[in-house]
């Protein structure tokens, strides 16, 4: 009886993981593969060793921070500047981890180190994709779905870095430019489809503030746009109680 139970659980787990993996094949893995290919080519161009290029992708796993690190370390910028730039560029990992963890666990109990390990693979693509896909999914399916999705994404990202490092400079520059254009557009379209009106408004305000402030304050614009845009969206929607407050849909 309990054995039967276990087999059923294993089958559903495997099925959800496969579904997540399959979801990643196509635009998400292709997009990340190409973005990381661009990073690999950049790292090679800047004179990094192949091992460091790969480890940067594998351990940082957040492209803006990776680029900040590679560019500034290669330029010989002071240590404090490099660290601050990377921390700044990848700061969005904090709100994405807080909300992403709740989304993928679906009420499952996972130990602290397990949660921390799972979140090592959380980045913008997985976060937006999970927000888009999981509401239509049983809570128990979400964790295996996430694991399947990020497993393929991670292989594509690290693989893309390796390919970019070795042959990236062979690719014609216009082709690379078009390829690298795809991922941010894909992710922007994904977040624009946010279910909750507060988050829809946050997306519009974030895009407007982020673009408008960037020429004035540089990379800090992401942070300011996020905090200000998100706060205005929450405050504006709170005046309309019919919407039912915040949420992560």
């Amino acid at each position: 009886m309990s054995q039967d139970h276990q087999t059923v659980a294993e089958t559903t787990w495997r099925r959800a993981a496969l579904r997540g993996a399959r979801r990643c094949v196509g635009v998400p893995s292709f997009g990340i593969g190409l973005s990381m290919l661009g990073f690999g080519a950049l790292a090679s161009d800047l004179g990094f060793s192949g091992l460091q290029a790969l480890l940067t992708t594998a351990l940082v796993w957040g492209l803006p921070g990776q680029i900040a690190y590679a560019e500034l370390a290669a330029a010989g910028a002071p240590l404090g500047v490099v660290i601050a730039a990377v921390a700044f560029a990848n700061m969005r990992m904090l709100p994405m981890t807080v909300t992403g963890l709740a989304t993928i666990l679906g009420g499952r109990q996972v130990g602290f180190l397990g949660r921390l390990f799972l979140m090592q693979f959380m980045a913008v693509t997985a976060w937006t994709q999970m927000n888009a896909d999981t509401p239509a999914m049983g809570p128990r399916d979400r964790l295996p779905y996430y694991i399947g999705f990020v497993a393929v994404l991670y292989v594509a990202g690290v693989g893309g870095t390796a390919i970019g490092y070795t042959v990236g400079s062979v690719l014609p520059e216009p082709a690379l430019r078009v390829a690298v254009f795809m991922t941010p557009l894909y992710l922007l379209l994904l977040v624009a489809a946010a279910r909750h009106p507060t988050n829809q408004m946050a997306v519009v305000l974030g895009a407007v503030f982020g673009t408008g402030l960037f020429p004035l304050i540089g990379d800090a614009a992401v942070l300011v746009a996020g905090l200000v845009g998100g706060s205005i969206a929450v405050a504006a929607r709170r005046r309309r109680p019919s919407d039912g407050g915040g949420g992560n849909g």
Partner: protein
Amino acid sequence: MAESLGVDDPGLWGLFILAVLATFVWRLGGVVLAGRVRQEGPLFGWIAAVAYAMVAALMTRVILMPRGDLAWETLWPRGLALVVGFAVWGLAGRRLIWGLAAGVGVFAALVALGY
């Protein structure tokens, strides 16, 4: 092409480890915080909205001004592709694949034309 950074340079590895930690702290902080924030509460809703706004801000900037390039010659083809992508996405009943195909298609065409 910069000169080689030196694979065995221990200083570079030290800097590398610090850069990895500079990302890790946010994930660690997120996991710690996630256990303390009630999912239905207003704080969680605010954090989610900030995350959405941050992602939108970053992605729009990367689309329009990749690597901080502010030149109008590179900005307008990207802006046009972005607007067309979103217009088609809206007209096609918010089907992502149509918006993506239209945006990337327009950008590819402009790049092929030499813009």
